[in-house]
């Protein structure tokens, strides 16, 4: 009997995760609200310094909102697998653990990308910045790259910590240091989009984010097997 390949198995896991999230939208709603709150809190912190300060910090605050929201979202991504030992059930099938990783990482990327249509307009409103169509496209592309860079290690660590009682504490502690390169590059790139890019540095920072995406997606796909199999 021929078995489905890695791509097909990953898509099956992705489809399952999207269907479950669609039926129980609690995670998406909570993560979006959290992101909006983070943006609001930063605006309150910087608001009394004047409009110019708000505008200058907009890009960085938007990235931090994505970053913190991603932690909340990624922590939740394995909750459905805990119930009834569903993850163990997937591992017992002759599936590649990498397909579980790629399916779940794709779903997590999708959820982080789904934050963009809310958080970007909220940022333009609260931080009083105006974005042209080109800037919106640039932000959208960067957002996708950043989301992928956050989702891959996040999915790996969520799988690693899912059975631990202290997941809520451990997950950010493990994840934040690993995500620093993507975070820094995204802050720089967003800043260039918001404030202008006279030196043409945007492509360099974008390439850096994409390079980390490639490294994380390849490395985490290989490591995921050890994370879930060695848990037993």
């Amino acid at each position: 009997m021929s078995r489905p390949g890695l791509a097909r198995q990953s898509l099956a896991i992705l489809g399952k995760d999207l269907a479950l999230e669609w039926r129980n939208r609690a995670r998406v709603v909570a993560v979006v609200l959290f992101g909006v709150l983070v943006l609001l809190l930063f605006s309150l912190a910087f608001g009394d310094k004047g409009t110019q300060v708000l505008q200058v910090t907009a890009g960085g605050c938007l990235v931090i909102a994505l970053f913190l929201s991603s932690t909340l979202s990624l922590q939740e991504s394995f909750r459905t697998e805990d119930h009834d030992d569903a993850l163990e059930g997937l591992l017992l099938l002759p599936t590649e653990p990498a397909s579980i990783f790629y399916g779940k990482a794709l779903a997590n990327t999708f959820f982080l990308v789904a934050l963009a249509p809310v958080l970007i307009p909220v940022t333009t409103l609260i931080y009083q910045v105006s974005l042209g169509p080109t800037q919106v496209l640039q932000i959208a592309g960067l957002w996708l790259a950043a989301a992928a860079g956050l989702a891959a290690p996040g999915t790996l660590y969520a799988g690693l910590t899912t059975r631990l009682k202290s997941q809520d504490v451990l997950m950010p502690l493990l994840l934040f240091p690993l995500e620093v390169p993507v975070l820094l590059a995204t802050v720089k790139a967003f800043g260039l989009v918001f404030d202008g890019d006279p030196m043409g540095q945007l492509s360099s920072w974008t390439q850096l984010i994409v390079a980390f995406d490639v490294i994380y997606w390849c490395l985490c796909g290989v490591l995921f097997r050890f994370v879930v199999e060695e848990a037993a």
Partner: protein
Amino acid sequence: MSSTPLVCAGLGRRFGTKWALAHIDLSVAPASVTLLAGANGSGKTTLLRIVAGLVRPTLGQVLVFGQDPRIATSYCRQRSSLVSHRGFLYPGLTALETLRLWSSLLTPDNGDNELLELLGSVGLGDEAHSDTSRFSAGMRKRLTLLRVRLENPDLVLLDEPFAALDPAGQVLIESWVGELKARGTTIIMASHAIERAKALCDSAVLLEQGQIAWMGEAAKMPTPGTDLEAQ
């Protein structure tokens, strides 16, 4: 590749300071049905989980069709299947969606008609579009059995197959085991329903405190907890 479904040699597993299994030497013949009996905590589930490759043995070796399930994981999982206490179900997915997920991970050839037929074969035809989180324990078990049908393995590991099932469900298990046996599938069954299981099994292994206390023909197996020396 070896045709012997299972060989355990000097197998042991320790959890902390407690040995859940020790000195397990066992060989299971092809197309046989073996009963694993013993009190709670005697090591039945641990043994099945080691064979399924979910738990690493502390000592000794386990070979599934000649391969170590922790090394040749994919090969062993293609040839064996575990039905555990857990259903491996996702609350929020319907019975049909659950089967679709398993099917899409195992073989892309099954359409909805085949899957609905499968659901009907275990009495869940009318529940195809019901959320599995609303299923009773027996219904969940029936759905889980369909996983094995989709996998079509050569070695089936059953952990308490009769638990949570009504009499009709228990009869379903009996006929299913008979069907698998007739197809040449090897079955290892851990059960507390000794009399019912004995009737289905060729051989039996009685575990006590993680060690093999008795091994032989299923029909001659002493009742667990009795004085084995006297028998």
